[in-house]
Structures are given as structure tokens and as C-alpha cells.
């Protein structure tokens, strides 16, 4: 069973709906027992970074431990940004530090937020994109982005005047800056790939 971490932020339901739609068993919960038992964890996020960190509270430690012990974890949008060490959105905030890197504001040369459907290019071995043709559109909505410094991380990019990290994988830890639950059929396919990774174990 996939557990979507329930913390006091917006739009956690959409992720659950999307998993259900593709026939996956999913539970919205923040109980330690459920997190321990889960085959995979999803950290969603429609919130400002600082708010999300506070709302996640002690659950952060449990999620981090489980991920460090090999449980597949998927962070989405702000949940993806939480995988890194810190963010400077409205002040400085510490993240889960599962992947080396920091979250910084998008350059104002282009329109901010980066909002809408953008083309994503990924390296071949990224498991979230199993059975994908390269260069697909996904839905983005964010004003900050991850500057990833981790040598072990595989990174998918989109072009927003520079190479912007669209998705990441470091062993069993996955993240998408875009919203797979809002990216139509392609997005559902990404969630399906994560569900399969969770099912068979990493």
C-alpha cells in the first residue's frame, strides 16, 4: 500500500485520487504505523516551504528514516523541494536533506511562477520514466527551484531559460517538481511507475 503523507497543507487529495484512478491502493495518513508498513511513501505539497516544514513537524523524521532504510519515497512539487537541504522561500528553512542541494528562487528574467506545461527531458535510466518516449509535457507551478549538487542524483530537466530540475532520482528517493497528479495521462503513467517500484521493493 502506498501512503500519502497527510500534513496540514492543500491538495493532498488529488494525489490520492490519481493513484486510485489507476487502480492502486492508497491511504492518506500521518501515523507512524502506516508509514512503517507502507510499500512506498508520497510527500505531496501545495504550500509555501516554511509552512510545509512546520506542518510536517515530527513526521519528517519518520519519513526520512524510512527513506534512508530503502523505502521508495516520491516527493511532489514542494514535497520534491523538501528532499533537499534547505530553501530560501520567505526566510531560511531546513529540509529533509535526503539529496544534496538547495531550493532557490527562479530568476526574474522569465515570468515567475513557472506555470504551465513544459517539456521534460530525462536520462534513460530514470525509473519514473520507464516506458516513456523522451520529451513529454508535464504541468509545473512553482516560483522556487532545486539547485541539485548531489553527484549520485539522476536529474531530468526542462527548459525555462536555463536547465531547470524537473525530476530527480537518488536510489530509492524520487521527486518531481511538476505535478504528475495534474499532468493528464503522462502524469498518471509516472505515478504508475512509482507504484510498481514500491510494489516490487527497491
Amino acid at each position: 500500500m502506498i501512503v500519502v503523507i497527510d500534513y496540514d497543507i492543500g491538495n493532498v487529495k488529488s494525489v490520492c485520487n490519481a493513484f486510485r484512478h489507476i487502480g492502486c491502493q492508497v491511504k492518506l495518513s500521518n501515523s507512524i504505523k502506516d508509514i512503517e508498513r507502507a510499500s512506498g511513501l508520497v510527500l505531496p505539497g501545495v504550500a509555501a516551504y516554511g509552512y510545509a516544514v512546520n506542518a510536517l513537524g515530527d513526521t519528517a523524521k519518520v519519513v526520512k528514516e524510512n527513506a534512508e532504510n530503502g523505502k521508495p519515497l516520491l516527493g511532489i512539487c514542494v514535497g520534491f523541494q523538501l528532499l533537499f537541504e534547505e530553501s530560501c522561500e520567505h526566510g531560511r528553512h531546513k529540509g529533509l536533506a535526503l539529496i544534496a542541494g538547495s531550493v532557490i528562487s527562479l530568476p526574474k528574467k522569465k515570468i515567475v511562477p513557472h506555470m504551465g506545461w513544459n517539456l521534460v527531458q530525462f536520462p534513460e535510466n530514470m525509473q519514473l520514466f520507464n516506458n516513456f518516449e523522451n520529451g513529454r509535457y508535464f504541468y509545473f507551478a512553482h516560483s522556487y527551484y532545486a539547485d541539485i549538487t548531489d553527484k549520485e542524483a539522476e536529474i531530468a530537466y526542462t527548459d525555462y531559460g536555463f536547465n531547470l530540475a524537473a525530476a530527480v532520482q537518488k536510489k530509492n528517493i524520487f521527486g518531481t517538481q511538476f505535478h504528475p497528479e495534474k499532468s493528464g495521462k503522462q502524469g498518471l503513467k509516472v505515478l504508475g511507475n512509482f507504484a510498481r517500484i514500491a510494489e516490487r521493493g527497491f
Partner: protein
Amino acid sequence: MLAKRIIPCLDVKDNRVVKGINFLNLRDAGDPVELGAGYSDQGADELVFLDITATIRSRKTIVELVQRVAENVFIPFTVGGGVQTIEHFDQLLRSGAEKISVNTAAVKNPQLLSEAAKRFGNQCVVLAIDARRSIKINNKWNVCIKAGSEPTDIDVVEWAKKAEQLGAGEILLTSMDADGTKEGYDNELNRAVTDAVNIPVIASGGAGTLEHLYDAIVKGNADAVLMASITHFQNYTIKQMKKYLKERGVPVNL
């Protein structure tokens, strides 16, 4: 490259989608969930649901509607109409909306924009502006509130700039003069606002032909085009719109 977005708008009254001309003479256009799911399947980039009654009673109905839409629609959708507080934002986002649009409440209490941005992130704060062309001064527009029924002295361009500073992440810009006429968007209005702000602007009001969409993007510099009449009554499919734009060199997710 970021694709230009095609966004059908569903004005909701008593659980039905309706569409009027210049905000009046409403016609029934169908079931919101069915229409929404249909547009999602056809390749719409986003949806906007506006509760045009926006009463206390309709607030409950719209939350239920958002939940049903979210179970069936896997593209982003914005919900607006009668949103007044952070609690309303929270309730609608939790029900599955991606973004929330505010108009009247933001005019009366601009801090709502910054409070919402701080809590939910500015990407989900949409400022809806209903703009009416000034009769006295050329190329000047005033903000109207309360579903277009109450004109104000506020200048649209100034208000857009202020809203961006406060934390709005997007502007849904409706020309009340063009709305429902199918005679084209007000691209002078679109250009005036897109030149003034650095957040995405959705052009709304007046779409009647495929060329109108192209003009809003190229002449109006809009990041997205919103339409209702021409899709609800099956004049054009989403695919036709995207194909037309693509053939003319506009990046779209097709």
C-alpha cells in the same frame, strides 16, 4: 519551452454550467463534472470553475462539486467565486483545487493575497480582474467587483501591479466589454497588463474564432487563453484550437 495554455471556463450556477453575454442572459451548458472530465480527455491544459452565484448556500455546493471534479479530472483546475478568507482557500485546495481565484475580496482586503501566498505559495493565488473600458479616457480600464455588478475607480493596470507585489501568482483578466460577444479578446487590455507585470496572464472574454486565440497570445502577449461559449456549444474542439495554434508557430501541448 513553456506551452501556451487553452483553458475552458465553466461558470457554475445551481450545479449547472451556464454561459451568458456581457455577464447576462444565461444559457444552460451542461453538467460541470461531465464537461470538466470531457475537456480533460480532449486535451485541455487547465480548467476554471467559477461559482457565479457565490452565496453562503452555494459555498457548500461548490466544495462538493470540487471534490467530484477532483475525482475525475487529472489536470489543474482553478476555483473561484465568493472566496473571501484563508479558510475558503484551505477548504477548496483540500477538496482538490489547484488554484483559487479571488476578485472582490482582494479588492476589499488586498492583504488576503499576501496571506494566501505566504501560506499556500503564490502559484495557487489567482487574482481575477473584471475590467471595463473607461468611457472617458482612451485605453484605460476600471476594475469591477461583485461579479461585474459594481464598478470601482481602481485602474486595472495599477491593480495588477499591486497584486503581483502582494503575492498573486497569476492574473485572470476578463474584459467585460468583450465577454460572450465572440468578437475577439480586448488585446489592448491584455497587452497593457502583460507589459506591466511579470506573472502569467490569462486572457478572457470574447473568444469567437481560432484567430482570436492566436491574437490574444501574439498581440495580447497572453500566457493562456480562456474561453467558454466557443467550446461549450461545440464550435471548436480543444484539439482544433491547438492544431491551429501549432500550425502558426505557437508552442502548445498537443
